[in-house]
């Protein structure tokens, strides 16, 4: 069977060649010390400088919306950890209102589901939702790809990254993913304390203990979420009637469950919760101490009320503020492309 041998050696040769190409272009994804392995499969979309930059340009370009009025960054602003500042419910095309609060975008490589109800199952296909949503960008991926293919700048950028003659939907989506994957926040004061490079104040230390006791079962370190869907006791808004995860799973056990958000950069990502009902962290803590609505899907941990004195609330908030990562919020690599 020397033809088999021949084939194997040829395939081997090809693989070596291929890895040589990939090796030249790939950019490594850095996992912060002591963080778990990311969920995103980088082997299917290896990072490269060109593609990250292309993704960034797309993220900031209103070409993705129907009337070129809205870009991803219209609702996801860097200085507020990529959430929508001062808008409880996001505004989209033609000033229409969405029904949910834009979440902060960071450490997305560790998420396995996206959106408050997990409607999106992979980061690559996330962008399809806002592009197609009539209240958001009101466009569709077919005409986005058409517009990009007619645009000289984009034809060059895509050719430089993908070495193909025309732009495809897959390339557009994977490029936007590449940029979003680089949005890693791991340089807060909390992180430097964990790395033994600085110390908490007494107040922060006390807040940290309260946090570990009351909050970390859901807002689990180091990402400050375990990304499960739970009911944290918010009352149903009678106008929005948003039952969260149940809409996706069709299972009554998932009624009022939402994806646990990370609390990194929480100081800057107000308003809070899926519908942006709270403006301040104080209001959030008041919810956990005296606003919990009991019903049969409520998380076990919240069945018995959390008790926090006025001073303890101040300490807990002092701790939450140590999750602010200025390096992330002001990193020029994440800003509007030059």
């Amino acid at each position, binding site marked *: 069977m020397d*033809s088999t041998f*021949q*084939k194997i050696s*040829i*395939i081997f*040769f*090809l693989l070596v*060649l291929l890895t040589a*190409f990939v090796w030249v272009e790939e950019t490594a994804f850095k996992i912060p010390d002591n963080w778990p392995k990311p969920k995103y*499969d980088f082997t*299917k*979309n290896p990072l490269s400088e060109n593609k990250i930059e292309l993704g960034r340009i797309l993220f900031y370009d209103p070409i993705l919306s129907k009337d070129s009025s809205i870009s991803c960054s219209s609702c996801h602003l860097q200085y507020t950890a990529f959430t929508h500042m001062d808008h409880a419910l996001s505004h989209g095309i033609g000033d229409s209102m969405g029904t949910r609060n834009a979440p902060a975008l960071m450490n997305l490589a560790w998420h396995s589901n996206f959106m408050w109800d997990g*409607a*999106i*199952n*992979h*980061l*690559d*296909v996330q962008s*399809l*939702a806002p*592009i*197609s*949503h009539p209240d958001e960008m009101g466009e*569709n*991926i*077919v005409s986005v*790809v058409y517009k990009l293919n007619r645009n000289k700048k984009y034809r060059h950028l895509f050719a430089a990254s993908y*070495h193909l003659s025309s732009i*495809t*939907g*897959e*390339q557009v*989506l*994977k490029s936007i*993913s590449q940029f979003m994957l680089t949005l890693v926040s791991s340089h807060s004061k909390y992180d430097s304390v964990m790395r033994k490079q600085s110390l908490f104040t007494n107040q922060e230390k006390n807040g940290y203990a309260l946090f570990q006791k009351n909050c970390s079962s859901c807002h689990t370190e180091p990402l400050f979420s375990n990304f499960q869907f739970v009911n944290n006791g918010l009352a149903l808004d009678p106008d929005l009637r948003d039952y969260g995860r149940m809409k*996706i*799973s*069709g299972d009554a056990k998932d009624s009022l469950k939402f994806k646990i958000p990370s609390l990194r950069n929480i100081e800057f990502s107000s308003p809070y919760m899926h519908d942006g009902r709270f403006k301040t962290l104080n209001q959030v803590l008041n919810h956990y101490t005296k606003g919990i609505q009991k019903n049969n899907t409520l998380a076990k941990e919240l069945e018995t009320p959390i008790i926090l004195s006025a001073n303890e609330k101040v300490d807990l908030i002092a701790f939450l503020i140590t999750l602010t990562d200025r390096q992330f919020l002001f990193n020029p690599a994440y800003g509007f492309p030059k």
Partner: protein
Amino acid sequence: MKKIFFSFVMSFVAPMLFSQSYKPVQVNFKPMFGSQELVLNDSVYTFNLKDSVYIETLKFYISGIELLCKNKMVWKENNSYHLINLSEENTLHLMLQVPKNIHFEHIKFYLGIDSGMNTSGAQGGDLDPTKGMFWTWQSGYINFKLEGKSNACATRKHEFMLHLGGYLYPYNTIQTIVLPMPAKTSAIIVIDIKTFLSAIDLSKQHHIMSPGNNAFLLSQIVAKSFSPWIAPSKK
């Protein structure tokens, strides 16, 4: 430059890889309405005696093609995902490259996309989201799409839209289809939309646009509308 070098190498290597005798096996899909050929945006077809229908879109995914001999898999296509779209004639004909020495009696394939591929992010080729077969607001492929108008539907302009898909238990809509394939070099597979429409109630099920029990049940019925083509004997 790299690309040129790569294709240069490939032009030598590819013939060596495929030099072992392969034969093309053609699989042709033949959309029918009963005994008539199904044509889009053209004829009005009748079914259930009194109902009529006009078809505008028929698109579906065929994946995981295998050839079987005595119920055992003897060959399978790699990366086997095909979008069949009646409005693009060439998509109705699949060309399989099968080693010459392989004997088979049946063809097996899935109608739809497996759950693994549903959760693997953006794909290219026939799976590219620009093909209009990926839901945007809740991730997942549409396995089967049939759109048109029928007097049976009390909807705006009598329109119906059946988008069947969903990969999550218990409403996983992918269907396995096994059909005899006696001819060695080609097969014609009929999908009979009359069989399908006669088995459902279009007056109630005219807009299915998300995963769930309806999509699940209708997918099973679509799967039963596939059969090997038998040339009409009487002239």
